[in-house]
């Protein structure tokens, strides 16, 4: 119905790629109104001077609050009634993930999360389930990612009973039929076969391998490998599901047109018989904190180099999380206003997409800079990024940059609350991540508290330009300078 090929000015992958966890910039939901301090810097342009004279009324907004309820079987619920529209949504988080699968069966978690839904349940074959759901215009979907499992339900109010039953059935009684397992394996195999078609996919896959020890689950793709996929048996999937899909291991965010007491009753009914069970989570090896400079190169017949460079970063619960977030906004996360895109894209026209990011996880995540530039400016773009890492460590940021970053986070506050589904989703995520339950209520204070000195301190602590690993996918024949000007080049042969 629409033209799908549009050309936006900002690269959408900023938000879609592996860069940010989705709720990274969650905002507070306390009933309090914050007044953001006005800009302190001098406006440099005539227009900005005029704008600084504008009087903006305060935004009177009290975000709705979700209720937290723990039901008898251990399920944690976040509930938020919203009667504006006759719709109903559940978003669930299950503590599981590819980190808990054995290396030789890499892909097990992801496959389990997919076939749970695609294979139907013991009492309802998949064809029937697809037909029922799609005729109601409802959806039930499940998946298991690296460090979490998720399940979602979306339905019209009039179909809550029917679709809730299917939702519970999928979580509790998936059938895992052999033909649907085979079908999914074949699809995954094809998508692995196709990975090298796309330079960005090559770069992301290889960068992970470079960052982490090959024995660590962070080093591999959650989809598994051509070899490991075939080692996964139906029984493995049944056991994996049985182990983690327990009521005491799930958090549900429930929103829409329902009555709280009624929905709790309904949940008790559809999940009746689902028993609590103590779960022994397999030990996940600690990330080996190795920092060393290295250069990697993979050849592909393309006219634009795909660069990812970086090193280990921080985990999600790092006490420096907020200063790091602000520092990265200034360095390369804050779109055009940030330094790395400012120089690589805006000043020199070397890339359409250039940014830096801290990807956080339960253990140490990655810090990286990513950009794509014509082969003839590969070296130049890398050098600029390295210079910027160096600069933010050595030279204090200017006040204006800090204000810009903080005001952006604080004034975008309201957009965290545009739907009831996003509010309960954030609450579920916060609890899942084991962040303080008042995370949203204290968020603005945490942003506000970040100082100038903090930014420089965390830049020094978490950025290591001398120990950066650089990965380039492209054709080195045309690079502006040989890559080995950054160090000895390790060649990656693509299959």
């Amino acid at each position: 119905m629409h033209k799908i090929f549009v050309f936006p000015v900002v690269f959408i992958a900023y938000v879609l790629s592996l860069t940010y966890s989705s709720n990274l910039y969650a905002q507070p939901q306390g009933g309090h109104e914050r007044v953001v301090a006005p800009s302190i810097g001098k406006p440099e342009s005539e227009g900005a001077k005029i704008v600084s004279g504008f009087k903006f009324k305060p935004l009177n907004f009290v975000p709705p609050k979700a209720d937290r309820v723990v039901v008898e079987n251990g399920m944690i619920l976040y509930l938020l009634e919203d009667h504006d529209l006759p719709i109903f949504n559940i978003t669930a988080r299950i503590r599981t993930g590819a980190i808990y699968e054995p290396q030789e069966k890499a892909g097990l978690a992801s496959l389990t999360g997919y076939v749970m839904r695609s294979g139907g349940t013991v009492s309802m074959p998949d064809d029937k389930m697809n037909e029922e759901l799609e005729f109601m215009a409802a959806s039930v979907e499940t998946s298991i990612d690296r460090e979490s499992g998720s399940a979602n339900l979306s339905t019209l109010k009039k179909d809550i009973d029917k679709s809730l039953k299917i939702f519970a059935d999928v979580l509790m009684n998936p059938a895992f039929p052999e033909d649907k397992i085979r079908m999914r394996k074949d699809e995954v195999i094809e998508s692995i076969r196709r990975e090298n078609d796309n330079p960005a996919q090559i770069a992301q896959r290889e960068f992970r391998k470079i960052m982490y020890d090959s024995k660590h689950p962070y080093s591999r793709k959650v989809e598994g490998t051509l070899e490991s996929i075939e080692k996964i048996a139906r029984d493995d999937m049944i056991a994996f599901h049985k182990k983690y899909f327990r009521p005491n291991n799930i958090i549900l965010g429930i929103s829409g047109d329902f009555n709280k007491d009624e929905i709790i009753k309904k949940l008790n009914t559809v999940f009746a018989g689902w028993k609590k069970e103590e779960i022994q989570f397999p030990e996940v090896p600690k990330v080996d904190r190795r920092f060393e400079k290295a250069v990697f190169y993979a050849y592909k017949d393309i006219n634009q180099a795909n660069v990812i460079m970086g090193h280990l970063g921080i985990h999600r619960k790092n006490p420096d999380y907020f200063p790091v977030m602000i520092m990265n906004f200034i360095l390369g996360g804050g779109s055009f206003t940030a330094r790395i895109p400012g120089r690589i894209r805006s000043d020199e026209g070397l890339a359409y997409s250039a940014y830096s990011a801290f990807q956080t996880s339960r253990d140490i995540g990655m810090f990286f800079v990513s950009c794509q530039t014509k082969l003839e400016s590969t070296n130049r773009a890398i050098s600029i990024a390295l210079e910027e890492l160096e600069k933010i460590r050595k030279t204090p940021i200017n006040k204006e940059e800090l204000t810009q970053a903080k005001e952006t986070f604080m004034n975008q506050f309201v957009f965290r609350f545009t739907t009831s589904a996003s509010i309960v989703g954030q609450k579920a995520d916060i609890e899942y991540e084991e962040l303080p339950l008042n995370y949203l209520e204290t968020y603005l204070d945490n942003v506000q508290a970040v100082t100038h000195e903090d930014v420089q301190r965390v830049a020094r602590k978490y950025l290591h330009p001398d120990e950066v690993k650089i990965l380039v996918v492209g054709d080195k024949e045309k690079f502006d300078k040989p890559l080995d000007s950054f160090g000895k080049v390790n060649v990656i042969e693509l299959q």
Partner: protein
Amino acid sequence: MKKKTLLSILSFITFSVFLTSGIFADPLKLDVKEYVLKNGLKLLMLEKHDVPIVCLRINYKVGSVDERPGITGVSHLFEHMMFKGTKIFGTKDYNAEKPLLDREDELVVKISAEKNSGNAADKKKIESLEKELEEVRKKLRDLVVKDEVFSLYLRHGGSGLNAATATDGTYYFCDLPVNKLELWAFLESDRMKNLVLREFYSERDVVMEERRLRTENSPFGLLVEQLNAVTFIAHPYRWPTIGWRSDIQNITKAEIAEYFKKYYAPNNAVIVAVGDFNPADMIKLVEQYFGEIPSQSAPPRVKTVEPEQKGERRVEIEFDSNPYIAISYHIPEVGHPDLYALDVLSSLLSDGRTSRLYKSMIEEKRIAVMAHAYDQIGKYPDTFTFIAAPRAPHTVAEVESAIYDEIEKLKNTPPSDWELQKIKNQLEADFIRDLNSAAGLANEIGHFEVLSDWRYINTFMDKIAQVTADDVMRVTKKYLTKSNRTVAILVKKENNNKTKETKENSKPGKSTVTY
């Protein structure tokens, strides 16, 4: 690629009707208020008071369809320039900047002329001109306030900041906390009247990088570019929105300035606002800031009509990638009654796990890992397109023939009542869900206003309700025919002989400037 949201967002009901009656069988209408300024600028407003935000769009009725060979990509390049500021934004001192910008342009033209003069090119002269250019640019850089439009929006809580160019329109997006409305009116009206084309040459390079990223090194982007170039032999839908490489590299500032004057006039623009505001206040604000901007004469419509296709066309693209196939069929433009049946057809073929293509090609035969069908509704006649990826060792030939099998089935047997009802249920549910999103509503209203009229949305559900199984059969027979189709196949390039690479103008080691 997923078409679900695309097909779905098309009908709405007013909030008031909905909330008071609690039924959605009522007239499914969106209560958009319309106001037109004397200079022709149209303002479309929809109130939505649940969250204190406002989603604002300024759309211009100009896209790559309005271009010509030599300046393809100018709409998109111009969209980028809209973020570079005005006489009062993005500069410390426009009066100091202006003569330098003029000198920069002169030098670029001179250098280019010298270089193109062949053997007689005077190296010394070029060198000295380049040196001067560098100096001018250094001075210019000192006067720029970097990316100020973007920064100002961000620090005031702007969200979803972006812009996009397509064949028929150019779209500017900005969602703001509602108390910042005046900032938007001030900035946007200034962009409409006082735009300055600064940092033009580096931005042209950015767009070249975008082209490399999205098209030249993307199997999918390349496939679609080639498909369109062969599907249309006369109509401007044949060139890519991002532009041909040589055109992007050579578009001049003069060309882009002329384009701005012709198309970025208030009478060629529409403002959409959805959110927590009062329409009377909004009208006042828009009158205050945009009311004085002079209108221009109406830009011309495209006269070229794509001639009827007289037989199948095929194109093969070699690239370092696994295979893909795309097939397109000409269909009519927005406003044509057959489009509703084509909407249903695309949904029938590829929406969800119970759709025809999914069931037959992915689930049963297992010959493909992706198979989509979508109808593109354009201001001018566009296409109904299939796109699919075979699963090895299955081939594009198998996939192609499986798609034709599904098409032929629909020519002989009508879709079931169950299928039609399912599609209608989904459309209805989708529009209810979409009422949740102020941003989505603003996009839809603005999109259809650019194509023809936002009221398209208000009649959509009724029209869809009238589509019968026979209609679906009829349009399949009418449009999805062999002589009306173009097939593009992307095949793996064997042996990486690297002779094919197009030469670029930029010189290694001196990457700042390309002429």
